[in-house]
């Protein structure tokens, strides 16, 4: 199991899509939500799940809900 994955599922996100829609670079988004560019990159790649606070900041920046950006995919076995 991936260290970042939750038992029974995995977090996916659409940050890259929303960034493109708002014409933002990783650096721009990182600066606006108060993290480093590496953190935005890690979230986009699914290697790091952001805190609830950071998820809210991103959702507010894109004026959508958290569920619009972050999706929890359950493992169906």
């Amino acid at each position, binding site marked *: 199991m991936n260290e970042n994955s939750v038992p029974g599922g995995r977090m996916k996100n659409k940050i890259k899509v929303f960034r493109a829609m708002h014409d933002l670079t990783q650096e721009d988004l*990182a600066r606006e939500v*108060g*993290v*480093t560019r*590496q*953190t935005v990159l*890690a979230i986009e790649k699914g290697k*790091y799940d*952001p805190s609830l606070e*950071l998820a809210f900041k991103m959702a507010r920046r894109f004026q959508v809900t958290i569920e619009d950006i972050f999706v929890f995919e359950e493992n169906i076995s």
Partner: protein
Amino acid sequence: MKQYTYFLLLGVIAILEVGIFYWSVENLEPLIMTGAVVIGVLTAWISRQMVDDIVIDERSHLITEKASLRTLQVMGITLFSYALGGIVISVGGDTFGPFSYQIARFSFFLMFTVFLMIIVYTLFFSWYERKFGAGGEDEE
């Protein structure tokens, strides 16, 4: 302060520390060296607070936490096993050579350090457990 300036300052502090170390060895002044290290670390820490760019965030905190825990585990086990081996050597007296007494003294010191580390860890653990909400009254 820019991140670049901060790294430059770190370099200057490191060079100063090396200089003070050399001076302390030449003049046999251990206290000056110890004080210089503490002041150097404090200066570096204060400077980092003044950096405008974002260098530390929640992800870097997580990485630091995980790396610290692994270091503690690996070093704890390594030092503890080394100390136990040393104590076994000390029990054998001169069987293991003329330095058995020195090895024993060092091993007991090492063992004491490991236990001190465990005590400090336990104290921090309970502090953070209380800070993050454990131990409170249950509503039900």
